[in-house]
């Protein structure tokens, strides 16, 4: 066990990257769930997408997946850009109507 731990500290393998991505994912989730500001939430989403991308690229290096993983990551970046554009446009629209971007206050629809 100790040996395994020492080894894994020394050489960054697949697991290391995955652990990083896991923490990043959790931080993204944390941001999404806890920040009132819509833009903060969107930033959290970016973290989640990035964590997935780390996975893809890590797999592309450490498994037979090879370049396919990078390919997917590339598309994910594109998608993230598109999503961010639309999301921010919507945020602006909401801001015009509600005069706030605090998600907490945007809750007319319920029940």
């Amino acid at each position, binding site marked *: 066990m100790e040996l395994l731990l020492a080894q894994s500290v020394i050489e960054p393998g697949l697991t290391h990257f995955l652990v990083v991505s896991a923490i990043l994912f959790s931080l993204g989730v944390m941001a999404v*769930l806890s920040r009132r500001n819509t833009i903060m939430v969107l930033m959290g989403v970016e*973290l989640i997408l990035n964590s997935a991308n780390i996975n893809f690229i890590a797999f592309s290096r450490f498994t037979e997946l090879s*370049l396919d993983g990078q390919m997917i990551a590339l598309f994910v970046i594109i998608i993230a850009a598109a999503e961010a*554009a639309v999301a921010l446009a919507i945020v602006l*629209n909401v801001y015009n109507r509600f005069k706030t971007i605090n998600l907490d206050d945007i809750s007319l629809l319920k029940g």
Partner: protein
Amino acid sequence: MELTTILFYLFSLITLGAAAFMVFSKNIVHSAFALMFALIGVAALYVLLYADFLAATQLLVYVGGILILILFGVMLTSLGYTFNFKTVTVNLAPASLLSATAAVLLIFAFVTTDWKISEIAEPTDTVYDLGMLLMGDYILPFIVAGVLLLIAIIGAILMSTHLSAENREGV
């Protein structure tokens, strides 16, 4: 200790630290800049994973594009009425509990799993291979991504322009 190992820990630390700062910072502008550092850290990690093209794209698209967009968003929505970059948190207890649990579970899963590793050699030129893939196997997603961007742009314009202005034009 090899250089890559040191770099890995360094960039990981930068990435996660920046991300954590972003998540917990009270000031939204600080958060945005923290996000930038996190994204740069991720790009560096890509380099460690032999994905240099991706790293470049990450810097260009994310740091150059998305982040700017976000900053614009911050400015537009914080200006006008009051200068207020402060943001508050909700659901703090459940959110931290859930994300901590998620982290623990994921790490547990990753650590305990016996991965089938087949490391690839350091490629000489990923850009070429990626370009061939993009024009070959991935031609369809490539085109669709183009369409997606088109739609997104039109959608974003649609959502962000003021309707009231058009009303004045008598539409």
